[in-house]
């Protein structure tokens, strides 16, 4: 590797930091620069929607520990704005350019914001998203001020975790989602129905089948009402828009790579692909932004917003960055995520969407303690546990092995009376 150019990591994130550390661990001793659009050292996101909102942890107490002495140059608060692949230069917002020999792209994703058009006009104040540390700090301050009713738009993992926190804080909460249950896209409504019962117990006003159309402001420009497509309205003075994320690839628009808001397409070795589908020399990607083929889902590209994937993929990309051209190894990763909400620890492995059957293998939905597996065409493809995570590794192993559905018969606390169609919503129109 050319000594003066070195490695540049774009994205001072979990993936960026762990990738940089893996480079050093792998013996890379040359120049190393980490570029981040936020002014902060890499921080941990999972606590933002839990302990930070609850006021148990200050937003600035989320900095990630450094596991290796990086000896790196940090360019924080400095978004990357462009990439000149021919000259191997990364352009930053302040007009400067960074030469690189190898580049690790770990810019992640940003919260999908509420669409603002000429017709809607500017958004009222009091409308939040929850993705970054600043988002969490602002939302925490808003919640601490004691809003009369929090409206959460979108009942995915973040929306549900936020709803859970708000109820713990004693705030009135409405959770609106177009689907019949929360977590419908991730787990399907059959399992999502368990969250409906949790919402009910916790006293969350859940509005399934609800499309929020627009927000109205009071005289001071603060949000006071959400208008629904069906005509009704919800009075609210604090809104959390939790509609998922878009990948942070805008800065790559002119770079000639296969990038869009769904991610930056990579090959199995985490190498970014150019417009012709060829690996771009020296450019790798990891974490939320990286859209890769998955050996478990042949023919399908996916980018995972998972903590474990960010760490593992960054480590793998770093390994390949240091390896010879003919020693690029395939990244194999079983997707895994967790969430904690309503006092329940939810953990999942595999990819459930696309499943045609789901069966409760241990425990029961009624008790909110269970392990369920998803099957597609007779094969086991995913498992989800509600307060039963200890068995998950056994199922994960079988998902990786692609065993027949359902796996592991004869388990303790098993009745297998509860199985059926998972009830996923129609794919989102783009």
């Amino acid at each position, binding site marked *: 590797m050319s000594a003066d150019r070195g490695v540049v990591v774009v994205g001072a994130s979990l993936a960026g930091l762990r990738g940089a550390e893996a480079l050093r661990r792998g013996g890379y001793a040359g120049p190393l620069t980490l570029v981040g659009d936020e002014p902060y050292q890499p921080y941990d996101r999972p606590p933002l929607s839990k302990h930070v909102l609850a006021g148990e942890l200050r937003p600035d107490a989320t900095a990630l520990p450094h596991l290796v002495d990086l000896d790196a140059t940090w360019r924080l608060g400095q978004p990357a704005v462009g990439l000149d692949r021919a000259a191997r230069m990364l352009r930053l917002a302040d007009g400067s350019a960074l030469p690189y020999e190898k580049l690790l792209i770990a810019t992640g994703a940003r919260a999908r914001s509420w669409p603002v058009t000429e017709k809607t006009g500017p958004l009222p104040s009091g409308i939040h998203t929850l993705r970054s540390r600043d988002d969490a700090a602002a939302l925490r301050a808003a919640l601490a001020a004691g809003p009369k009713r929090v409206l959460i738009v979108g009942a995915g993992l973040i929306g549900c975790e936020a709803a859970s926190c708000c109820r713990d804080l004693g705030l009135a909460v409405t959770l609106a989602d177009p689907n019949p249950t929360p977590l419908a896209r991730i787990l399907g409504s059959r399992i999502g129905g368990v969250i409906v019962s949790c919402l009910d117990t916790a006293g969350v006003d859940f509005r399934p089948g609800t499309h929020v159309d627009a927000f109205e402001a009071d005289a001071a420009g603060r949000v006071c009402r959400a208008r629904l497509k069906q005509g009704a309205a919800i009075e609210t003075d604090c809104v959390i828009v939790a509609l998922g994320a878009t990948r942070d690839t805008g800065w790559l628009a002119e770079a000639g790579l296969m990038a869009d808001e769904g991610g930056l397409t990579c090959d199995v070795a985490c190498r970014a692909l150019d417009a012709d589908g060829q690996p771009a020399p020296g450019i790798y990607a990891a974490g939320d932004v990286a859209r890769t083929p998955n050996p478990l889902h042949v023919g399908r590209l996916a980018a995972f917003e998972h903590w474990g994937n960010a760490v593992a993929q960054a480590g793998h990309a770093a390994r390949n960055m240091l390896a010879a051209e003919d020693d690029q190894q395939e990244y194999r990763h079983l997707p895994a995520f967790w969430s904690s909400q309503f006092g329940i620890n939810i953990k999942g492995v595999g990819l459930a969407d696309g499943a045609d059957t789901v069966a409760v*293998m*241990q*425990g029961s939905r009624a*008790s909110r*303690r269970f*392990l369920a597996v998803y099957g597609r065409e007779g094969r086991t493809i995913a498992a989800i546990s509600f307060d*039963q995570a*200890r*068995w998950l*590794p*056994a199922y994960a192993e079988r998902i990786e092995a692609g065993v027949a559905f359902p796996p*592991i*018969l*004869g*388990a*303790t*606390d*098993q009745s297998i009376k509860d199985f059926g169609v998972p009830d996923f919503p129609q794919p989102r129109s783009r």
Partner: protein
Amino acid sequence: MSHDTLFAEVTDPANRADPYPLYARLRETPVSRQGDGSYVVSTHAAIRGLIFDPRLSSEDLPPSQRPPTGNPFKDWIVNPIKNRVVNAHRPLIFRDPPDHDTLRAIVMEQFTIPRVRGVHREVEGIVEDLIDKLQGRDEICLVEDFSYPLPVMVICRLLGVPEEDEEQFQKWATVLATALEPDSRGDEEARHATATAFDAISDYMRGLIKEKRKNPADDMLSGLANPEPGKPAMGDFDLIASAILLLVAGHETTVNLITNGMLTLIRHPEELDRLRRDPERAPRLIEELLRYEPPVHFRTRKALGDIDIAGTTIPAGAPVILLFAAGNRDPARFADPDRFDPDREDNQHFGFGGGLHYCLGAPLARIETEIALNALVRRFVAPRLLQDPPPYRPGASLRGPEKLGIGLERIA
């Protein structure tokens, strides 16, 4: 040589002092079928696979059957009822989910941080007192004089058993500990003694629970007997079973850990010196001890379904013996496994078992052992073994010295 009688050799008291060469031979077949139809699991990987396999059940105890007394009223009416109660309210180490999980969660709630801190202070006091009592002696038996009394006193204080009853508790604990020993299940006399002690301690607990309801104090039994409204609670039969379990499971195991600890330290004088100079070494040293000389060598389970593991199929219904102590010495997992090395990295031992039945009292055991070993090496001047190997108790699972004679220059 065939491996299907190796486990019988493990349980043979003649091999108690050094079962490790047998374990090495067992590991040649990670899952090895024995002549009696049971399956012994002895490699780290296979044990690890099985403790996280949901098809392995802990409900492997035969139904309770009290031996006949000759008294028709007892034999036809009282004992069948007692048997039914015992069968329905096994302690949680013999229960599967979901009941296991419910009971365990309720017990865990009682291990509060202030309570565990309180235990820390109690243990320090008890340890120094026990050693003070040895002043002037140049030969002691570590088991009788120290390791044996300590855990019962600690668990009694934690539970809230009045001090004047501790001695009686000690006696019950001794009898009941054998009930946890899988190879004693068939022994008629042991069963009779166990049933008698079990009835006596159950009656005692029933009374104590009543007392804790009348006059609640800040102890675990008061907490368990007076659940907060709206929180999960257990019935009195489960409560009694849980309290007895805490006493029994936390007793002989901790005795073994402390005794094995001192035995191992005297056998490795350089480690004893290092610990004396640096008490902060204790946590690492205890983890290595849990690997090298664990207090519990194996536990039994039952396969609920056919389980394919390490090239063998364990058929549904078969007894499974998880030989944790063999996994702890598996060269495929631990470099130079027969070496006692407190500086070992990545020491993922099975000293406290694993999976959902992972020792509930592990934090307590660590605290007790740390305080005990640090005090012993600090205060025992020039300790030496009077007999090596020491005589062992008969149990192959709860394996530990029956006596540990130690000669001393003096007590500091």
